[in-house]
């Protein structure tokens, strides 16, 4: 399965596209695209780029593990969780950081 991720322009925070077309902070809320949804996925990428507010939109592959969305790459798992050492909370989206397509 695939998700879309990027960084929100103002805060730089890692964000994910959810099922309602909002870019949100939590990977667990990410919309899951099945293999046969490439068209919808690509349309979402184009719409997100058009907002000019999400930087570096990428497709990432994920699995569901115990009801949670877990990225296949370690890099993405760290992006989703925040730095591990020293452990810091992730960057917060500001009030002006909500982007929808």
């Amino acid at each position, binding site marked *: 399965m695939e998700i879309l991720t990027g960084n929100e322009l103002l805060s730089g925070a890692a964000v994910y596209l959810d099922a309602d077309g909002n870019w949100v902070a939590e990977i667990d809320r990410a919309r899951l695209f099945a293999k046969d949804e490439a068209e919808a996925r690509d349309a979402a990428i184009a719409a997100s780029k058009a907002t000019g507010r999400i930087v570096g939109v990428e497709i990432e592959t994920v699995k569901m593990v115990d009801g949670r969305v877990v990225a296949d790459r*370690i890099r993405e798992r760290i992006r989703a969780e925040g*730095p591990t050492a*020293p452990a810091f909370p992730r960057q917060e989206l500001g009030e002006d950081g909500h982007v929808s397509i």
Partner: protein
Amino acid sequence: MYRYDEFDAAFVRERTAQFSDQVNRRLTGELNEDQFRPLRLMNGLYLQLHAYMLRVAVPYGTLSGRQMRKLAHIARTYDRGYGHFTTRQNIQFNWPRLKDVPEILAELASVEMHAIQTSGNCIRNVTTDQFAGAAADEIIDPRPVAEIIRQWSSLHPEFSYLPRKFKIAITGAPADRAAIRFHDIGLQAATNAAGDVGWEVWVGGGLGRTPMIGKMINGFVPNEHLLAYLESILRVYNRYGRRDNKYKARIKILVHEEGLETIKAQVEAEFSEVRGGVLTLPQEELDRIGSYFAPPSFEDLPATPIDIARETILDPAYGRWLDNNIFSHYRPGYASVTISLKPIGGAPGDATDAQMEAVADLAERYSFDELRVSHEQNLVLPHVRVADLRAVYDGLVEAGLAEGNAGLITDMIACPGLDFCALANARSIPIAQAISHKFAAPERQAEIGDLKIKISGCINACGHHHVGHIGILGVEKKGTELYQITLGGDGTEHASVGKILGPGFVADAVPDAIERLVDVYLGRRETPDEPFIATVRRLGDAPFKEALYGTT
């Protein structure tokens, strides 16, 4: 310290205003990311895994108390209360918000600092010996020349789009503490037969994907012709450097592929054209800039021996600190102090805003308002009276900065790695922390002695792993972080590149693997005075390989 002249002040101010406008245009959507990205990078603003990162240049690693306080203020006001000092003698802030960056740049400009040329294919911040202007073994203080190079290379129109980035390091001492042989150009002070001081010029060194030791292209370039000579090298590189392939675009590849003699002939041809021209440094200008770096008003003090054995009995932690963190000063009665940013289990190079303030205080009170950042991610108080060492130490204890481990196994370099860096393959900081915990016992560190461990989270080698006595390189294999261990690297005048010992280890196994290497050394060294790197050179890799992988 150098003070900006009108030109410096004007260009930094103009650039800040320009960037402020560019950020606004990005926020209103007038600029898209493809247009904005190169502009923000020109101002040191990267986008990392979790947020933006602002890289601020600390010219040749020299700071005043006021500048350090400003960094503390920025950390506190716009970031998360800390900064990360890097192997490029710079500082990075990991959490700034885009709209705050113009303001941060204006704050920096108010103390004569900026983030220009901390990214991109231009000449980057010149780095030097952290004990420059203080070291007992120095021939000449390299900072005036470093400052001249800074002025020449700042916004140099011809060298703004080089084939790749370009790093220059300079040292005025025979003992190379600035790793000059691993820079695009390395400069080492030299004396000719007439007793004049000039520069040995090394070219084509570097780390990264293809580590190379620089080659000496000229054994003596007179001071007044140095800029002309540097310009000649840059011209040859700019013309012939491989723009077709990012991985082959550094000058080290050009020198390697064409051969030193070919490059030297081209440089000399260029030099004969420009020598004696506008780049010749007039004596008044040398004197003017040199005057900013005039020695502070040292007192005439008698040589003051430090009785480390006695102090160690009275206060072992203080004794350790004296033993490891004090460096010989050229003036009797003074010493340079290394402030370790490597507390046991800490993130190498990180300092909080409160710690930066404390260090600024100490610099103002005890070190003629001077501070340095070392490429080993520590700070330095260059000019402390021996009589004040205890007071400085007590101040550092209060700030949580009194680890007496400079040069020891827990004084590791580690890049930000996959906890922050968008280019990383694996984490670096937790590996450093685990090794630090493993070797935390001071007696054990003392027994092991000088040992440099350097850790990078990818082949770009910001953590200088190739020149670690033990180097650790993070790689990713099938979704797992693995760590390759190299042995025998050395960034000093005895330059060597470490060799990979064998297959990588998972993170949990790294501290034990390091311990096995250390145990071979302790078991096989000829005397307790033979340092780790000497034992490695004497024995070769074999016993160390065997300790890691068994007999093959």
